[in-house]
């Protein structure tokens, strides 16, 4: 690890004033420390934000939930309101990492974790995300884990988070503080597609800090399911994952949310795939229509072509399980 200076502010405004292009915020550190060991990240200053007052989970006035950025993944997954009202989020969090890592990792940090693309980690190879303009090694390389949707000629990396897939489906809001004050970002607008700037994973400025994630009241507790498909039963990143949530009135779908993980630079949604289910019965045939729309335009890189039919089938299965969730419970 390269040497760096260390600061531990106690107020949000103090933290954002210390920030800048050569500084990094640190909380759980489960990804950042690893990247620093590999010399992928070499910040000159670490700003330890664990002393900031962002550790609370609070009910909002409209029945939602405001989750402080420093709440650990474990505490959030086992929080009684998350277990009861947002089981999709609890399932997604518990599908990721290990208990040790979930005890360390924070809510805000989960959004900011970097891709696990092998070439991003390997400083001996070109990577446009790590070294803009150097090229993408993954396009002709080992790309079994890479994107099938929304990729560009510059980058085919995927976002590794499970939690974010559920937050996308739940339409969370990201609360952010910066030197100019606070703002809120809709979850769908938070992460970026790579385009010609794959070095930018999201829309945050260098001196902006995530302070909280807000969940709306609608948690789809009766009919939701997080399905994660991976190479081994536990403790592995998703090849494909699906956060599926339905609001069903009798036999008719009133509202549908489908987000895919492991397939793109951000959790993948398509409004058309959700709209096609509205007013229809929860049948496999209708779920297949939604899956086809969600996978519209999917393109493999060779070694990851298998993800396209896998994702299509995973969507149908997740929606089927979501539709049956309440009966099974």
């Amino acid at each position, binding site marked *: 690890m390269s040497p760096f*200076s260390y600061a*531990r502010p106690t107020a949000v405004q103090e933290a954002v004033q210390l920030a800048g292009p050569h500084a990094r915020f640190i909380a759980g*550190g489960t990804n950042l*420390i*690893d990247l620093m060991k590999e010399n992928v990240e070499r910040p000159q200053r*670490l700003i330890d934000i664990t002393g900031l007052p962002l550790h609370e989970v609070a009910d909002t006035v409209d029945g939602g939930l405001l989750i402080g950025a420093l709440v650990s993944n474990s*505490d959030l997954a086992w929080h009684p309101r998350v277990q009861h009202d947002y089981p999709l989020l609890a399932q997604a969090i518990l599908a990721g990492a*290990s208990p*040790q*890592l979930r005890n360390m990792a924070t809510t805000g940090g989960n959004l900011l974790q970097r891709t696990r693309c092998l070439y991003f980690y390997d400083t001996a190879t070109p990577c446009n995300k790590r070294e803009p303009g150097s090229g993408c090694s993954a396009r002709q390389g080992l790309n079994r884990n890479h994107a099938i949707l929304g990729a560009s000629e510059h980058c085919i990396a995927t976002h590794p988070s499970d939690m974010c897939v559920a937050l996308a489906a739940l339409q969370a809001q990201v609360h952010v503080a910066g030197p100019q004050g606070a703002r809120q970002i809709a979850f769908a607008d938070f992460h970026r597609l790579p385009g010609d700037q794959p070095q930018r994973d999201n829309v945050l400025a260098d001196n902006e800090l995530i302070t909280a994630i807000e969940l709306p009241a609608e948690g789809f507790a009766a009919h939701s399911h997080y399905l994660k498909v991976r190479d081994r039963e536990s403790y592995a990143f998703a090849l494909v994952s699906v956060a599926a949530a339905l609001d069903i009135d009798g036999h008719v779908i009133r509202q549908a949310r489908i987000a895919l993980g492991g397939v793109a630079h951000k959790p993948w949604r398509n409004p058309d795939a959700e709209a096609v289910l509205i007013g229809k019965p929860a049948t496999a045939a209708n779920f297949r229509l939604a899956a086809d729309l969600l996978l519209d335009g999917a393109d493999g890189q060779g070694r990851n072509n298998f993800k396209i039919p896998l994702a299509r089938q995973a969507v149908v299965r997740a929606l089927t399980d979501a539709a049956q969730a309440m009966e099974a419970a």
Partner: protein
Amino acid sequence: MTTTPAADGDELFALHTLRLNINGEQRRIQVHAWTTLLDMLREQLQLTGSKKGCDHGQCGACTVLLDGKRINSCLTLAVMHDGAELTTIEGVADGEALHPLQRAFIKHDAFQCGYCTPGQICSALAMAGENHAHSRADIREQMSGNLCRCGAYNNILDAIEDALPACRGELETSAPALGKRGSAA
């Protein structure tokens, strides 16, 4: 925490003085900002029970209890934990009396080379406190952050399953120190 600048005044090389309670003992220690908790334990305090397996948070051999919660000590900086309470494998037994988990690991032959064992035991100890493991399948899932390259998983599972009731009993009857290991939200 106090910070002492390096002799040449370069803040990058400043030393940070921490106070930590490690296995019930109050310790004062100086670290550089980049020293991981694992390196501090092993290199500076000679507590070499916690192992450096992968050094990337993938194997769990470095698992310790930080304020009662299991973490990978290789993926956190010591400087961030001034005032914390740490339990390492060296603090699990009560003097010469082995902890029920340690006895169970011997009884069930739950290791071959033994390198992952300190992490396995610390992880299982914390898992007992979390109280989310109610079946053999739960134990497998919740111990998935601890790899064993010898493949002693079946015996590890037997040992933990055997010791869990005793661990929980101990948590209920004892000790503020052990009681604090619960991390249920």
